[in-house]
């Protein structure tokens, strides 16, 4: 526990060794051995208690239950009650990731916008953005989830008299059906055309770059490259059979055909977590922008950059570097908070695990798997954040 023991000398001036109980090296080893013994002892004690209790209650300690049939269904997936627990947990993990990944993207986007708006020169915009932040980040996320689920989505009309705004979507308390694209017959050919278009655009951009390097004339590579891609894509779209078609949801009595269904549980969880996390990210973005030295902005002004270019080319790239670690933390928080979906029965990993436990599967193993999966997600995310962070820092040199 003491940070400063290693500096002591082992022998005194006369060459005598100190007695072992005053020898720093001995003390250090003894302390560590003691620590390991205490830690292992505690773990062993806990584990043996667990084993005894499970044996007493007749609960198995192996993982064979994973291959048993689940006996429950998961809405929003083609998972059937006869599939195994293993598949059920896998579906749960997918549902967790579905909210986590989209949520991270949306929260980042909204967070950056609100964070920038908090520093707007427009007083009203600034105030509105700070109201957004202060209201959302001081309310528990669970309150938001329950609010959106019970007080907003559950008060929508029932399916038989659902609202159909603009005749392009169906809004009911069983979910919201949105217009969606469906792949048509020409998809493969069109995808190939698109690949060719992207390749051509890159070549054209590279050519313009060379022209610019050689002659100093403006390269306009985005304009040239984008134009090439658009022309090729347009030609492909006109000549090939249509690659995609719109599917408009249609309400017939109590059923809806076409479109894509947005489940109320999914929508409530996603919206709440995005709003909650975006408020924190906005604060991080604001702090990081303010941490960029004022001289940078003034230099950009002196160069005659427009306010948009100042933000995009000078301030944000530097602020990003400052904001990266804290923002990564918020990503982790969001992905862990997906487990709150259990309260509105969104079938994420923990909810599926709970259903399995309710069906008589052993709780210790299930919770171990759930915890390990969430730890794994955290680990992968923080690894990604660390890599991104290191890359951002490298730019500096």
């Amino acid at each position, binding site marked *: 526990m003491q940070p400063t023991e290693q500096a002591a000398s082992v022998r005194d001036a006369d060459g005598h060794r100190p007695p072992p109980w005053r020898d720093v090296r001995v003390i250090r080893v003894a*302390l*560590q051995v003691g*620590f390991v013994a205490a830690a292992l002892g505690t773990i062993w004690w806990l584990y043996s*208690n667990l084993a*005894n209790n499970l044996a007493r209650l007749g609960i198995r300690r192996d993982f064979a239950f994973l291959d048993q049939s689940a006996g429950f269904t998961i809405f929003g997936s083609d998972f059937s009650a006869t599939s195994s627990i293993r598949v059920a947990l896998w579906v749960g993990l997918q549902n967790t990731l579905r909210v986590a990944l989209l949520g991270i993207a949306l929260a980042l986007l909204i967070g950056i916008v609100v964070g920038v708006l908090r520093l707007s020169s427009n007083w009203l915009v600034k105030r509105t953005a700070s109201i957004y932040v202060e209201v959302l980040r001081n309310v528990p996320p669970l309150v938001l989830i329950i609010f959106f689920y019970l007080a907003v989505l559950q*008060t929508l009309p029932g399916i038989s008299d659902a609202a159909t705004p603009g005749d392009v979507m169906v809004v009911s308390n069983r979910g919201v059906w949105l217009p969606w694209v469906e792949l048509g017959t020409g998809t493969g050919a069109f995808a190939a055309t698109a690949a060719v278009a992207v390749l051509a655009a890159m070549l054209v951009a590279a050519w313009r770059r060379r022209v610019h390097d050689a002659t100093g004339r403006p390269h306009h590579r985005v304009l040239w490259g984008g134009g090439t891609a658009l022309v090729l894509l347009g030609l492909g779209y006109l000549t090939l059979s249509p690659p995609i078609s719109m599917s408009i949801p249609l309400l017939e009595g109590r059923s809806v055909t076409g479109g894509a269904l947005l489940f109320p549980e999914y929508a409530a969880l996603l919206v709440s977590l995005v709003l909650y996390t975006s408020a924190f990210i906005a604060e991080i973005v604001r702090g990081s922008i303010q941490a960029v030295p004022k001289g940078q902005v003034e230099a950009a002004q002196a160069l005659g950059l427009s306010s948009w270019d100042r933000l995009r080319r000078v301030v944000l790239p530097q602020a990003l570097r400052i904001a990266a670690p804290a923002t990564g933390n918020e990503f982790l928080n969001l992905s862990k908070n*997906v487990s709150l979906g259990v309260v509105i029965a969104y079938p994420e990993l923990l909810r599926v695990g709970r259903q399995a436990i309710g069906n008589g599967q052993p709780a210790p193993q299930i919770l171990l798997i759930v*915890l390990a999966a969430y730890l794994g997600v955290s680990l992968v995310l923080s690894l990604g954040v660390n890599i991104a962070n290191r890359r951002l820092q490298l730019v500096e040199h």
Partner: protein
Amino acid sequence: MAAPSAPPGPETAATPPERRVTPARWLRENLFSSPSNSLLTLITGLLLAWALVSFGRFLLITGRWDIIEVNLTNFMVGGFPRGQLARLWVAMAMMTIAVTISAGITSATAAEAAIAADRDPSVTVRERVQRAGPPLVLLFVMIVFVRTWLPLALLAGVLVLGVGGFRVGRRLPARWRGRAGIGAVLLIVVALTAISSFGGVSRDAWGGLLLTVYYTVGSLLLAFPIGVALALGRRSSLPVVRAGCGIFIEFFRGSPLIALLFVGWLILPFFLPVGFPTPDLVTRALIIFVLFTSAYVAEIVRGGLQSIPRGQLEAAQALGLSPWKQTRLVILPQALRNVIPALVGQAISLYKDTTLVLIIGQIELLAVAQNVTQQEAFIGQGYIAETLVFVSLIYWVGSYWMSRESQRLEARLGVGTR
């Protein structure tokens, strides 16, 4: 006040002339500086006006607040036996004294730090109003909903005690501060145990805001020493200790709290010896909160330890202090002072996280908001919006106020500016 300032000299003549800001000029500069800015103002203004008007309509016209009025006691204490409420008032008075004395001490310390760093320690009237705002709003709402006089009189009494406690804390001589702080912590512990002990009410019958406060305060008090120990362990020179503490911290920081609460709910009893009496659910949840919070406290304290310049440690070594005394007398006091704002942040997040116990079947504040809508008089009429807005207000005021105070404290302690 008497803040030391630069001596009057030629600089004073160079201060820019005072600008007169007329309302019209303010509007032009802040809202309509350019056509695009004017458009932005217009759009934001309309959106904001719409939001405020709908919310105001809900608050004043369409909201049916009788459900709060009828159930106010349920929101505060859940199923706590009504005959025993006197215990809660006594506990509340004790905790108020403890908290306000500590607040007074902190305020005095911060003012001294401000003077030492050449900053103005005085508090303007405007600042006082801003600080008092959020709790006053909550107080006002409570007064609106309370239907009898007794609670109001008791509340006034508690407020008087609070003001007195703050004044005492402010004026306490510096050498008594440490002891008074320990005393305050002990007083809180006694207050919380007195509710359930001595023929009191078992914690399984607690609910509402009482349970929320219990989890927040209880876990913070217990998690703090564990967190400090973990932080010291993680900075230890012994690699095994460092690794062990690191694994513990990262495990609890990487796991979702609700999954850990499931562990506490379903399998924590299995970890106890066969025949050991199963602790009640509140204790199990509290254990989980403590372990989880201690991991976060450890990381915060580690940040504080890292912020202490190496010279402090070397000076302590040069004085011949033992390693334990180096840590206890030189490093920790400075490190902990630096992380007070971050610790308040952790308290806020714990306060919000207590809502999770509703998932394992405890009737805390948010669960009350759901349950009262199922009462015979209110079921099926969509009262959930009203109750959720009410409890949101309680959560919001609590965490907004704490975060404001911690920002203020951060500025006054001069964290990061020394």
